[in-house]
């Protein structure tokens, strides 16, 4: 699940993953969006990672709508989540929006019976190429929850997108192994 404030780069992450994945390893990218391409309900992309000990592993990537007033939709999509990528917008003027979104995420996870401190979680600091960004260390200090992997990204150019996905996938697989 890719979570974060509106226009932060969640859908862009999925679009990049879709672009670089071979046809046989991906399904359709479904985007339920408004006419102005703002996510209305969710984006969905199924990806095959290959086999591990004979088990085919498939990840279903979802994004949530980031705009504040879509909270009821975010709650629905969070049900059954296995891991979260928080896509932070590094621009100075979006710092409050990032903080509000993380708080919203923690609250919605709690409502679903999850603990943000325990669920597989990665922090992506996106839009690192823009001129008005908060220094990465400062942003990390503000947004870090529990020592999660932090990955700097420029999702529009694909920078950091795959390492982010691998980081959360790794945690999900480790968690799955623990539950067995």
């Amino acid at each position: 699940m890719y979570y974060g404030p509106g226009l932060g780069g969640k859908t862009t992450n999925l679009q990049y993953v879709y672009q670089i994945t071979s046809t046989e390893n991906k399904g359709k990218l479904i985007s339920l969006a408004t006419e102005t391409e703002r996510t209305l309900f969710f984006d969905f992309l199924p990806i095959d990672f290959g086999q591990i000990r004979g088990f085919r592993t498939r990840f279903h990537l979802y994004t949530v709508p980031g705009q504040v007033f879509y909270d009821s939709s975010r709650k629905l999509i969070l049900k059954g989540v296995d891991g979260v990528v928080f896509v932070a917008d590094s621009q100075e003027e979006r710092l409050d929006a990032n903080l509000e979104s993380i708080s919203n995420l923690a609250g919605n996870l709690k409502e679903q019976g999850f603990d943000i401190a325990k669920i597989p979680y990665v922090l992506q600091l996106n839009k690192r190429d823009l001129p008005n960004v908060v220094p990465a260390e400062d942003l990390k200090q503000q947004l870090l929850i529990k020592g999660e992997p932090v990955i700097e990204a420029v999702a529009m150019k694909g920078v950091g997108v795959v390492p982010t996905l691998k980081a959360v996938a790794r945690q999900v697989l480790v968690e799955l192994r623990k539950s067995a």
Partner: protein
Amino acid sequence: MSPTNFNLHETEFQRIQAILGRMQNELRAQLVLLISRSGQPIVISGPAENIDCTSLASLAAANLAATDGLASIVGEREFSVLVHQGRRRSIFISDLLKKFSLVLVFDSTASSGLIRYKCKRTTLLLEDVIRDFQKRIEKAERVMSIPQFSDEEIEELLGEVKSQ
């Protein structure tokens, strides 16, 4: 039982497939799916010509989730059956014990009244199978038989060289 973590034994899978296959034949449906409420297709019956079952399952689950939200807003407990009628094809989605859903794709020659009736009967049969494997899972020490794959195997899957 977690809505996302469960496994089916082959006998349970075959029971479900037989129920869905019978329904598909009786109704001449193009596709009958059992899906999880998290949007995973579990058992599929039918030729599924040109229908992306993965996307269908995800969207059907989202449809039901959104409908649950709508029901709550208007003071209803649930809207457990959804019908989407098209010119050539229609879709019927029905909730199963709040953990799974039955999804049918049928063409315009099928009678929606007959579909509702047959779905009601099929739902009861499927609920019996689901309750049986829920009991099995509750008794079992572990929910899933996942091998203890190593960190190296995870890294190989993810296509990275493990750092020293």
